[in-house]
């Protein structure tokens, strides 16, 4: 494959690689393509930042505190039964 083919990836591919790099090491070619694309595409840069912010929130999110007395009683009844 020509060097330009490796480097010139489109936004759809770049954003997919942004998601994948978090879970699996990218190949050398993919890393180079993503690196190059991120230098020229401000939209994918924005996507990457937003994606990271979503990840952070997803990991840290906690719900609001609710009254669980009734549930605690149900659980205790079930454990005794």
């Amino acid at each position, binding site marked *: 494959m020509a060097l330009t083919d490796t480097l010139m990836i489109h936004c759809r*591919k770049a954003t997919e690689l942004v*998601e994948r790099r978090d879970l699996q090491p990218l190949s050398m070619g993919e890393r180079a393509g993503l690196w190059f694309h991120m230098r020229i595409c401000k*939209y994918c840069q924005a996507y990457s930042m937003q994606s990271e912010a979503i990840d952070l929130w997803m990991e840290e999110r906690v719900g609001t505190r609710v009254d669980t007395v009734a549930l605690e009683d149900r*659980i*205790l009844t*079930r454990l005794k039964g």
Partner: protein
Amino acid sequence: MAGWVKSHTADLVRYARSRVKDPDVADDLVQLTFVSAWQTLKKFAGDSSPRTWLFAILKHKLADHYRKVYREGQQVSGMEIADDDPAISEFATNGHWTSTTKPADLSSAFELDEKERLDRALRHCLDLLPTNLRGAVEMKYLKEKDSEEIQQTLGISATNYWQQLHRAKLKLRSCIEGRLTRNA
């Protein structure tokens, strides 16, 4: 065990409710967590705190839940996402963003002064995701990024899993941005 129920139920419920749409389902999963803990109490070696142990069980229950949800969602939608799925409509046929789908706010990583507004937008948009996509995305955070295990649990190929995550993230991003812009 009664002491554990009193000490940890509220935190477990809080965690579970932020990860599933239906609060009743979340409460059931917490209940099942204590049932499992009770049944396997002998295995609890005490090398972690009861809280850590209970949360580990709850994460398993959540993963089980999402595995079921995911498989049901797959049946409803009929088939896996094909490589050139037109549903990834954020991109034009040449693979670039379209004028209406490209990220609008280039300086924003959704780091808002008003954290609560972002929090509401994220919760709302997460609940709008189709069930199978929600399952795929929740798995990523439950299984602590062990993608092979996730693919096995969901019974899908690696490629398919990336596509699901990618689709989910694109939908989330665009939904959140839309909501924040509208409510600005």
